[in-house]
């Protein structure tokens, strides 16, 4: 078992290395005077000196474009990134890691609640659809699931906004808080409620987009399990259909489910760039999108590196969970 684990960790590190190199190469695309343009305003205002600009160029390999030069700057960037220093954002005037840690919790909150909702809605629907294959329920649910994955997030957001925020006026349109409301100093609960109210639509959008995939996954796996021999044995023992489905079949479906669901966990910290922007929720997705559009290289690099780490972490967790949940892969 340890062998397996070590191999996976080694693989993860290799991938991380490769991804970081690729991301670093992104900066290679930038034309020579890109950084000059971006920092021109800051230099003029005196927030940055020409040495700072040169240092930046060196950091992103734009100063010395020979191969050893790039390699050197990549390594120095990588070491500082892995030790937590993700650079200094142009746009926000703060270390990137600061910005990330400040805004990450809203993004996580939205993502996490949708995650829970997706599980609570998608899995039971998937089970019911698999038990009643080819029924009207199965078809309807499958079609809705596929519509969910076919909708662009910005379109769904706009639709919901139109209906709920504008026409019906029951939910707020954008933002995290109601700007015009002033709360007395200790009304924490009220503030929280206000924030929660603003998060209803974004969470709904994320849930609707994701529940379809989970439902289909559950359904496919349940169908495969329900056709196995051991389910036939369970029925032959005289167990009721409910016990057969929820105890025998579902326990087997849990293996791929838990594996992939736990693999999704790190990704919850990554933020939803489009949805947050449309709803003007100040999460890191929103910050990252702005940074991208405005060419804030340190932030872009830092953010992408962060996402890569999350992805690889998810891979690792999913592998580990597979070992934990499947008794066939136990300590041998």
């Amino acid at each position, binding site marked *: 078992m340890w062998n397996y684990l070590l191999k996976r960790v080694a693989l993860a590190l290799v991938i991380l290395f490769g991804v970081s190199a690729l991301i670093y190469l992104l900066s290679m695309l930038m034309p020579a005077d890109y950084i000059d343009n971006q920092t021109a305003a800051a230099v003029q205002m005196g927030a940055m000196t020409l040495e700072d600009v040169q240092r930046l160029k060196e950091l992103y390999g734009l100063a010395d474009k020979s191969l050893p030069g790039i390699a050197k700057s990549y390594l120095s960037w990588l070491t500082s990134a892995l030790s937590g220093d993700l650079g200094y954002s142009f746009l926000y005037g703060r270390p990137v890691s600061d910005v990330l840690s400040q805004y990450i919790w809203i993004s996580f909150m939205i993502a996490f609640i949708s995650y829970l909702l997706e599980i609570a809605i998608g899995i039971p629907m998937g089970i019911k659809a698999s038990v009643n294959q080819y029924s009207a329920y199965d078809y309807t649910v499958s079609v809705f699931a596929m519509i969910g994955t076919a909708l662009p997030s910005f379109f769904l957001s706009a639709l919901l906004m139109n209906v709920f925020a504008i026409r019906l006026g029951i939910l707020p349109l954008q933002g995290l808080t109601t700007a015009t409301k002033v709360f007395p100093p200790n009304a924490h609960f009220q503030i929280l409620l206000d924030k929660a109210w603003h998060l209803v639509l974004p969470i709904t959008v994320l849930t609707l987009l994701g529940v379809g995939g989970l439902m289909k996954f559950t359904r496919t796996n349940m169908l495969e399990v329900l056709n196995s*021999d051991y389910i036939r*044995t*369970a029925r*032959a*023992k005289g*167990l009721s259909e409910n016990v057969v489905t929820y105890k025998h079949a579902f326990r087997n479906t849990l293996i791929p489910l838990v594996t992939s669901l736990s693999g999704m966990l790190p990704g919850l910290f990554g933020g939803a760039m489009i949805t947050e922007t449309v709803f003007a929720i100040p999460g890191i997705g929103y910050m990252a999108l702005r940074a991208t559009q405005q060419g804030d290289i340190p932030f872009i690099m830092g953010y992408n590196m962060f996402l890569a780490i999350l992805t690889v972490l998810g891979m690792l967790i999913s592998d580990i969970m597979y070992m934990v949940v499947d008794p*066939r892969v136990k300590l041998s």
Partner: protein
Amino acid sequence: MGLLDKWKNIKETEVEPGIDHTMYLTLKEERRISRENSRIIKQFEREKNRKNVPEEEYLTQMRDPNNVVEFDNLHTYFFTDVGTVKSVNGVTFDIPQGKVVGVVGESGCGKSVTSLSLMQLVQAPQGQIVAGSIRYQSRDGKCYEITKMPKDRMLKVRGKEIAMIFQEPMTSLNPVFKIGEQMDEVVLLHEEGATPKAARERSLEMLNLVGIADPQKVYNNYPHELSGGMRQRVMIAMALSCTPRLIIADEPTTALDVTIQAQILELLRDVKNKINGSIMLITHDLGVIAEMADYVVVMYAGRIIEKGTVREIFHNPKHPYTIGLMRSKPSGKTKDNRLYSIKGQVPNPINMPNHCYFYNRCDRAIGICAEEYPEMIQFTDTHSAACHLCRNGGFMDTNSTKEQR
């Protein structure tokens, strides 16, 4: 949409019996069949799912009180999109108390479906028991009509009074639960007032009974930690937990090594005597039949073509198919260089002909064989066969080796 129609139109020939026309169905045809099937299936399913059905509706009388199970003109069909597959097409035989009845036939002849019908485990919703009756005599003396029993009542019979073991021991046990847990489940389900402790004791006792050396260890094992033979023993132990009246063994040794095969068969016979029960042994292996069975039922294409005691079938087979089966078994005694095999194939199960199903493969067929289906002809009170040649004694000696090649 002419383009689509070009795709859809696959030429349809006239639906003549005996001819495989499944490839020719147009989409419209398939849709029509599908719709009709849904209607029929819905009716059957509704009947099966009724709750709180009064017992009188499914109580009946056995024809012979010495029988545990009586199959009487059973018809089990599968309603598929390409037509109705008549898997079991008029099967009648008995399983007497304390005896082993062997059901022989090639793949697809309907022997498994017959046993599944008895357990009401036929693959729903496509598979349905359409006609006929299955009478089962319970230990408490009551006699049940299984085809009329509602699902919730059937659950009390399965595993408790009739138990089944399957062909593939490697995949028949749930891989995520321990052996002990799976075995206790049966006891806890069926025995009134059983405690987990009592269930555990019973399970260990059963594991011991089937010849497992270290029941404790196996009790705590997962299925993947055991060999095929061990798993089949566990399956048998599980089947025995509630002292069933009848054990259905569907090809229990086909997936095992020959040496293990012998052990498992020995075990089954042993067990049958210990619990004073009957066994319905389904197999295509004549050797197994010869060793184990008291009575033999030979099935072909959904019907029984011969049945009798094991002596009668082996020493005096009447139906050409049975004779062919006997000859097919390779033996060191034959002087021929070629292995004998019955030429031809089983007819298409969707469109069965109106005459003897074996006609196109039979080397003794006469004119009438292509015109009507032969009825069962009784030779002794146990031995009967469905063959035109058996009538009026106008039949060739089975020991004659005159070939018509």
